[in-house]
């Protein structure tokens, strides 16, 4: 079990994705000859401007919006910050209460905590054992002071997909704006901002085979949102800064590819994922699948393995060339494991022993086979080291 296995088997697509060759190809001319500033007047910069506007149309089409409602950002985090702070600061006179969930990404949670320090009050809704927010809870949490509901479309750790359309309806019934962090959902969950009652939506290029450092915020026409980044008149005066033209072009192409055949893509990926889940649960005792059994992202498998800790699983897998992720705090040096896993009711020990495998477009059935071969070995090895492992679960080392 050493570095012999040189090939990298990447199964951490929720962390980030490679860029598709088509995306790199779309960007290439904007990295060299088409370098004009989109704000410039001369014809030479028209390529840049057109590239940006074509991408805006591609993003709009992917989420059922119109191009004028799409604003480019430097990523999902900036989009989340802008949406939530922007709504809060622009609607201060209408109320100071925000409803969100306990399992949001830190880009949402830490933004909300910052707003709390500015005098806003925030309700962090609990989730059920599968990580779902119940729409009725949203309704109960809304007060006369509520100005925004923000619930993610799909969770990045356990993959649980939220009942976004219902939550949107509840929010709108009460006259409250609805934001959703769809960073993990694009390309897996078909999005229609109209049908789903979404007023603001965040997305990020590097989660769907597009470039890092690119994202977008959808803002429904007519929604008052305070500017987060002030300066020049870019993005129709709402997000200043010279546009990341190659990045935006790549984002546009990537979202077009990612949403071209969501159903077919999901079918293919989920088939592999389901085989992976069945194989792991079948061969590793005292293991469980975290998140929802069916309402989950097609590429997400999140396990808890009792008696052992996630970072050590991850590093042994890394030794065998497999790239994965964990919600154990030990990976971040803090002592609290993943707030998401704890919110679903896991004990600290179970949360520490979690492993996330997220499949992507380049994964094959053989990759699944390889993980199914390596993972039980790795788990067994660590369990032999652990003082918590009961005798029945302790498998002797193969000779």
């Amino acid at each position, binding site marked *: *079990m050493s570095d012999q296995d040189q090939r990298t088997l990447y199964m951490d697509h929720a962390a980030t994705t490679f860029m598709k060759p088509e995306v790199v190809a779309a960007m290439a001319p904007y990295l060299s000859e088409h370098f004009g500033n989109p704000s410039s007047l001369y014809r030479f910069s028209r390529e840049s401007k057109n590239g940006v506007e074509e991408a805006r149309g591609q993003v709009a089409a992917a989420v059922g919006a119109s191009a004028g409602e799409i604003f480019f950002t430097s990523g999902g985090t900036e989009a989340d910050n802008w949406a939530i702070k922007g709504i809060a600061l622009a609607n201060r006179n209408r109320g100071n209460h925000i409803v969100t969930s306990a399992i949001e990404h830190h880009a949402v949670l830490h933004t909300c905590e910052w707003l709390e320090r500015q005098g806003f009050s925030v309700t962090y809704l609990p989730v059920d054992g599968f990580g779902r927010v119940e729409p009725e809870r949203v309704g109960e949490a809304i007060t006369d002071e509520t100005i925004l509901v923000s619930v993610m479309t799909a969770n990045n750790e356990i993959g649980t997909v939220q009942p976004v359309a219902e939550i949107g309806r509840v929010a709108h019934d009460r006259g409250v704006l609805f934001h959703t962090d769809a960073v993990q959902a694009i390309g897996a969950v078909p999005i229609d901002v109209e049908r789903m009652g979404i007023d603001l939506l965040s997305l990020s290029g590097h989660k769907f085979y597009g470039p890092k450092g690119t994202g977008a915020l959808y803002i429904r026409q007519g929604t008052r949102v305070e500017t987060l980044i002030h300066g020049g008149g870019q993005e129709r005066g709402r997000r200043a800064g010279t546009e990341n033209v190659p990045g935006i072009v790549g984002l546009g192409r990537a979202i077009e590819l990612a949403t071209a055949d969501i159903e077919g893509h999901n079918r293919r990926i989920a088939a592999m994922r389901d085989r992976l889940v069945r194989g792991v649960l079948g061969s590793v005792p005292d293991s469980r699948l975290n998140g929802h059994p069916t309402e989950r992202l097609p590429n997400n498998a999140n396990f808890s393995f009792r008696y052992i800790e996630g970072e050590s699983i991850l590093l042994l897998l890394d030794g065998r060339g497999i790239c994965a992720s964990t919600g154990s705090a*030990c*990976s971040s040096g803090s002592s609290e494991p993943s707030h998401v896993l704890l919110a679903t009711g896991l004990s600290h*020990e179970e949360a520490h022993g979690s492993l996330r495998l997220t499949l992507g477009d380049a994964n094959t059935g053989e990759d699944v086979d390889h993980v199914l071969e390596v993972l039980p070995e790795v788990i067994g090895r660590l369990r032999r*080291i652990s*003082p918590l492992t009961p005798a029945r679960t302790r498998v002797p080392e193969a000779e």
Partner: protein
Amino acid sequence: MYTEKVIEEFTNPQNVGELADADAVGEAGSPTCGDIMKIYLKVECDRITDARFQTFGCAAAIASSSMATRMILGMTLAEAWDLSNADVVDALGGLPEPKVHCSLLARDAIRAAINDFRTRRGLEPLERGSGCCCSGEGGCDSCPGND
């Protein structure tokens, strides 16, 4: 983020397991904070002649458990008591700053085992700050090789 040495020690840990006839057993940590170490010692004439460990924890915890058991083999209990986590970290070629606390686990488990050894012999457990840990069996000096 880890040095090659840490990864090597973690991937191929030494002295893993239990000792059925241990003279001392010590435990430190808790599953809540993500790591537990249990250490088993054989002691002859105040000298550690065998050591085994079991660890639930991250790579840093496992690697420092392994390294610490290797380091205390052959030490007197007094020397083992004085083993600092800095010694273990140094022997591992360093740990990332947020991981240094994981190496405390080994020191704490060793000290717990030494106190277990003392308690079994009717001695008072030592305080944290204490420097000596002779079992008192004829004095440290009377054992062979303790010169």
